């Protein structure tokens, strides 16, 4: 029992849960509100690394460090959002991508804080439950992700959710109806980006040891393909897409398909190659993803 609850399978499940959360948050930003956030890994990585620095370099208690890292990520997103959110989507896309690169660069250069390329560790599991520590961590990540999805459902049937949706469809119209669109967009962006940071802190516990290489563009790309594949307009799009990408490659294929050791190094390369091809095919032939467009209901 304890053997099943720890080890590689548990690690993979936890990663999948974290990425489902990231893809759901991206759905809220891009699918719902229309913010083209191409710097997912920046917020995720900022949360992850600042949490590690608080916890290891400053010995701040686990949950407090988590909270501080989340707030810090949210504040950075607030500052960035204030600068760029009312620009056109191409500018937003490049600016968020730029911030992610800046985060990666600073993690490499600020060795006194992050230990640079040597890596920062080790981050323990949040609760010391003996052999069930990893299971306890997994449960925490799972509960937070489920809560996030439930919140998304509640949000999208609320007046506030409709306001956010209206900004994507026709922002000047929403503004003319007396809604303070830029303010709402800014607050929503900084909260959802802060939450990306929160899931970054959770991921730190799963990997235990962080190196700057993890902050490369692969994370952002994986989250984007998951959401687009699943269906960007659908709340469960992130879940479905993550299962069909990371779930398929990192769990099903790694566990059940016998791959000779010589070829196993090629798997991550082939994975990203197929992701790239897949992304192109979806956008050309089924832009609404697996789940398709949301059915319009009479309210």
């Amino acid at each position, binding site marked *: 029992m304890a053997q099943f609850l720890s080890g590689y399978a548990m690690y993979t499940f936890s990663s999948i849960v974290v990425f489902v959360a990231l893809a759901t948050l991206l759905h809220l930003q891009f699918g719902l509100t229309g913010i*083209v956030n191409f710097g997912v890994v920046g917020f995720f990585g900022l949360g992850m690394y600042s949490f590690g620095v608080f916890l290891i370099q400053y010995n701040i208690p686990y949950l407090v460090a988590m909270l501080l890292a989340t707030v810090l990520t949210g504040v950075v997103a607030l500052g*960035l959002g204030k*600068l*760029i959110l*009312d*620009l056109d*989507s*191409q*500018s937003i*896309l*490049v*600016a968020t*991508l*730029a*911030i992610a*690169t*800046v985060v990666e*660069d*600073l993690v*490499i*250069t600020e060795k006194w804080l992050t230990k640079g390329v040597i890596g920062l560790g080790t981050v323990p599991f949040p609760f010391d439950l003996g052999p069930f520590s990893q299971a306890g961590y997994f449960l925490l990540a799972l509960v937070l992700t489920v809560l996030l999805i439930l919140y998304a459902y509640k949000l999208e049937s609320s007046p506030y959710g409709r306001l956010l949706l209206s900004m994507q469809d026709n922002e000047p119209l929403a503004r003319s109806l007396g809604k303070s669109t830029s303010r709402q967009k800014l607050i929503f962006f900084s909260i959802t980006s802060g939450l990306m940071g929160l899931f970054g802190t959770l991921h730190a516990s799963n990997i235990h040891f962080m190196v700057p290489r993890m902050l490369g*563009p692969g994370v952002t*790309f994986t989250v*984007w*393909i998951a959401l*687009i594949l699943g269906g960007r307009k659908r709340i469960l799009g992130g879940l479905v897409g993550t299962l069909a990408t990371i779930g398929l490659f990192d769990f099903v294929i790694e566990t059940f398909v016998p791959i000779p050791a010589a070829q196993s190094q*090629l798997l991550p*390369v*082939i994975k*990203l*190659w197929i*992701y*790239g*091809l*897949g*992304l*192109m095919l979806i*956008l*050309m032939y089924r*832009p609404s993803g697996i789940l398709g467009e949301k059915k319009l209901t009479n309210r």
Partner: protein
Amino acid sequence: MSFFTDSLILGIIEAAPLVLATVGFTLIFYLSGFINVAYAETITLGAYFAIVFNSMLGLNFYLAIIPSALLSGVISVGTYLVVFRPAFKRGVGSTEMIILSVGLSFFIRYSLRLIFGSHLYALDIVSPTSFRIFGIGITNIQLTALILVAVITAGLYLFIYRTNYGEMMRGLANNEDLAMVSGINPVRVSVLIWFIAGVAGGLAGLFYGVFSFVNTLLGWRLILIIIMITIVGGIGNVRGALIASIGAGIITAAVTLITKPLYGEVILLLSFIGILRLKKVRR
């Protein structure tokens, strides 16, 4: 004073390939109206073609430049005809086009990884001789790159602002329907522009390959800066792109002289975000 001249000269040398890549990128951005992230791979491919012709097949470096540049142009046209033109016809929106180009970028990059592996490659160049200009060491290859870049950029500039095809391109970018009514064949002009842009990108990659090792991330590391320069310099404005890329080279060189190279990138990116903001305010 010497700090000023040092960063000026180093900046111009460093910016030389960047200018080429940015002008190529700007052409596509201007004509087709979207950020083509896959242009990163056109740059990478230029370097890899040079590796194949020069290091693997043993062709002289200067001779290897020609087929490498032409093949990069052909691949660029290929991506237009196979991926982007059909996507335009299917009505893919401009944000989705960018995501599509990111997909293509990953597809090409990891194709290269599958073919060439993750090794670092180096071009096979006869040991460069270096001499000093204003107290700064410069190699003859760097000087060749600089001269070639100047010549090609001047040629492109004349092409865009002084020739028939340049005029057709500008017409097509501004108002496609009007251009077609005036008898401009949009496919022919587009193919030509994507080819020229591809050649410029391939050459840029090749010259980067002269100064550093080549791996599959070469273009990806540059593309963000190139996109930023293009937007800051004014979309489709070749003069703006030229000035902005030389400026970027000088800023990077200046910061690198004082501290670490990565800080150069950080400061460059942050100031670009600031400029984006300022441009919006002024509009």
